[in-house]
């Protein structure tokens, strides 16, 4: 089965299961959404797919498969290969995810080098920065993170994420720290990259409106378990679980109409 498949994933901390029997599928070229509140286990699920679970959390049961092969194996080299070329991830706080004392071009080149790219890394880096929509990418490469806006930092991280041409990109709250206009631009960019490269994307957000706009399918997570999953239309139009109903309330009518006059 191509794409990313998570089957019966249980993550425990001590003897408590914090993620319970999670099933997810991201097909190549598709965008799957994972929605839920903070502490619902969304990020732990994502981190587990990359073998990046913070101690003392551990995968207690279940399997995570990438194109049919297990992603996280006991052997560390294999896990490292999966990260990047198999699955890449971008995070919520772009500025915090970049090294503040290195020029951004240098950081993109480091990713390329680690993935075994040879030849003119600078040229490839500038190409990538152009691909993610930075103006004058050759100049942008010479800047430090603090000289870039949050949206630009996120573009640099996306460039690093796609540098090794991953088959799956996990975007964990990629726009939560950004302005609404910048958010739309970044989500457009991710849509674009997906259409161009055929990579699958798992979009994680607490904001149901973002997930509902961009994803073909939605899984709703709450207290470590998936409480509802289906196509976006089905989940939005006829939510089965009360928690989902709460999340999608107000989404179907445009903003500015929810206000009663005088209130």
């Amino acid at each position: 089965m191509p794409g990313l498949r998570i089957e019966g994933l249980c993550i425990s901390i001590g003897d408590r299961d914090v993620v319970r029997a999670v099933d997810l599928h991201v097909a190549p070229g598709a965008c799957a959404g994972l929605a839920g509140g903070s502490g619902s286990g969304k990020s732990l699920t994502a981190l587990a797919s990359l073998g990046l679970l913070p101690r003392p959390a551990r995968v207690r049961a279940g399997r995570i498969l990438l194109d049919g092969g297990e992603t996280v194996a006991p052997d560390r080299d294999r896990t490292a290969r999966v990260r990047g070329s198999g699955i890449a991830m971008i995070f919520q706080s772009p500025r915090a995810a970049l090294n503040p004392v290195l020029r951004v071009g240098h950081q993109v080149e480091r990713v390329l080098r680690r993935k075994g790219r040879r030849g003119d890394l600078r040229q490839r880096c500038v190409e990538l920065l152009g691909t993610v929509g930075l103006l004058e990418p050759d100049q942008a490469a010479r800047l430090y993170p603090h000289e870039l806006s949050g949206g630009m930092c996120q573009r640099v991280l996306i460039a690093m994420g796609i540098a090794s041409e991953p088959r799956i990109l996990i975007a964990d709250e990629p726009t939560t720290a950004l302005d609404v206009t910048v958010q739309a631009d970044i989500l457009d960019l991710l849509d674009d990259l997906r259409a161009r490269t055929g990579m699958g994307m798992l979009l994680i957000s607490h904001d149901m409106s973002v997930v509902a706009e961009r994803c073909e399918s939605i899984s709703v997570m709450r207290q470590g378990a998936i409480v509802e999953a289906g196509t976006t239309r089905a989940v939005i139009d006829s939510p089965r679980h009360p928690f989902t109903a709460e999340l999608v309330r107000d989404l179907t009518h445009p903003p500015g109409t929810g206000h009663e006059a005088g209130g």
Partner: protein
Amino acid sequence: MKPLIEVRGLRKDYRRGGDVLHAVDGVDLALMPGESVGVIGESGSGKSTLARCITRLERPTSGVVFFRGTDVTGLSDRDLRWFRRQVQPVFQDPLTALNPRWTVGRLIAEPLKIHGERGAERRVGEVLRDVGLASELMTRRPRDLSGGERQRVAIARAIVLRPSVLVLDEPTASVDMTVRRALLALLKRLQSEHDLAYLYISHDLRTVGETCSRTIVMCRGRLAEQGPTAAVLNSPRHVYTQILVSAIPRVGGATPRGGRLRARPLPWQGTSPDSGCVFAGRCPRALPECAADPPVVEVTPGHRAACVLAGRR
């Protein structure tokens, strides 16, 4: 009815090296008793500076802020005491706004102590109930609370002196959607129970749409558009507002892909033009006449936009 707060020609400049940044650049607004006015715009548009000038956390460079008809712009800190009781700020991130070493009880009692109120203990208990927090939380410290509870403590601190205005700067930006809804419901209830006026600053247009009867749109320190919220969000007339509105996520990608109205990106160092429309440099529909200061077009009564295209359709 007279406005509680009236702002005329407000300006705040920040100097860095030889450059002057006009963070707020000639803003007029009025806030009526019990009313909610939303302030929207991208980050860097001057929303927070406007809030800080109105709450007198910053002294404006020029312009006047009236509270119930009294000019509070030039008042000293001591003379501002009565004003501070009436106009209270609530900030985005309660974790940095609340002293981490203090208990909830002490945090909420502090304003009472500063203003020499008696019976603090009873009032703290009352306010705690009012914002929907259990009295057991009284002895906790901010880090032991959830994000939603922390923001409730910040709101409790703001209302404990029974003010008439809250200036809320992105009050729900640091919490997730379900908590946001609960906080908005709380703010709505407090508003009707205590007849509070809100100046509600947010980049989340959906929240503003649900909360505010009037909305002001800021762009690089200026007022781009203002009017009844439904008019501003449903038929925006300034190109900048149209771009903001088209960026709101819609179920199933209602905006055709690639068809969304977008601002032109600016090169690294954007300089502010001395005259003309401040948005012209990024405007996808800019015309030669945008080099002159834009006319303020009144589209319908109270709905005004500072854009040459506002009168055309």
